[in-house]
């Protein structure tokens, strides 16, 4: 997609998710009001009072879930706003774990974000970076065993920002995957890697299985 197309897509998704959020906010307040009124009534004065209170609580719980989903969608849409922006890498790792959670869940694999000990920032293409990390997460998932857990962890390697995506703690040494020896799924990421001035490293030891994405 061109930048214009990306920005348009993001604008429409952001606008629609904003509307959905307004709908959820109104339902949430209405369920809250039902709950308030039921609790104001003397105990057992309303038929099925407890069941109605429970139903209102269920509505609120599902709305909170819906709000998280819409927030994820909205933040994703805003990543398309600008071709370059300053990105908080800990926040991005958390968002990527949320966005990719269902894909991992379907395979029976856990997906978590592990923040770096300090705030890490990078100026780059936010949408491109999300796409690259999603591709790297997919590659991890296709190699991971059912029941395992994949980490998305921002880090610093030789003074530059990087992401560790794999099982176990972050790897300390790794092999650069050149275009020639890249497996098919990772070869598809080469365009993104070049655009973002990044390189991907394969880590295949028994303790550390995954990929290191380094930015120059």
């Amino acid at each position, binding site marked *: 997609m061109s930048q214009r197309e990306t920005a348009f897509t993001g604008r429409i998704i952001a606008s629609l998710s904003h509307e959905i*959020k*307004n709908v959820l*906010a109104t339902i949430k*307040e*209405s369920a809250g009001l039902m709950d*308030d009124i039921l609790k104001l009534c003397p105990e057992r004065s309303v038929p099925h009072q407890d069941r109605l209170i429970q139903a209102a609580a269920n509505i609120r719980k599902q709305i909170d879930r819906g*709000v998280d989903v819409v927030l994820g*969608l909205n933040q994703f849409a*805003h990543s398309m706003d600008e071709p370059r922006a300053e990105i908080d890498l800990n926040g991005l790792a958390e968002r990527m774990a949320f966005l990719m959670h269902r894909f991992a869940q379907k395979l029976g694999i856990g997906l978590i974000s592990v923040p770096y000990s300090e705030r890490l920032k990078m100026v780059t293409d936010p949408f491109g970076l999300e796409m690259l990390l999603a591709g790297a997460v997919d590659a991890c998932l296709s190699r991971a065993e059912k029941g395992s857990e994949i980490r998305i962890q921002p880090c610093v390697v030789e003074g530059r920002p990087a992401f560790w995506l794999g099982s176990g703690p972050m790897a300390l040494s790794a092999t650069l995957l050149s275009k020639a020896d890249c497996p098919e799924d990772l070869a598809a990421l080469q365009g993104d890697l070049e655009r973002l001035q990044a390189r991907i490293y394969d880590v295949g030891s028994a303790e550390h299985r995954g990929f290191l994405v380094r930015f120059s």
Partner: protein
Amino acid sequence: MEKRMKVLLVDDEEEFVQTLAERLEIRGIQALVATDGVEALHLIEEETPPVVVLDVMMPGLGGLEVLQRLKTSHPRMQVILLTGHGSTKEGIQGMHLGAFDYLMKPVRIEDLIKKMAEAYEAFAGSGTREGGAA
């Protein structure tokens, strides 16, 4: 007798704002309602509420514009912004324009009341009363 806290809720989502007002009334808070920026500015002049809860995204006169005008005419009045966006840009912009704080919509009513109480204290502690409790 203890005075009731008076707040003005401004949001173009009428069902949302009316329901929220009703829930606040149940909790002993006098909640006035405006569904657009112009109506909000009228009510601010008539009622001088110490605390205003203002939606950022409104058609016509937007929340940030209402905030700017309100802060010029009633600098002590405290404004809590409700932002519906995943981005916190508008909230931060509002803080630069003098908002007391901002909350993401939908907000838990307990969190909103806590923030309103803090804003009310900030108003009360900021000098001569402009308006206030009913």
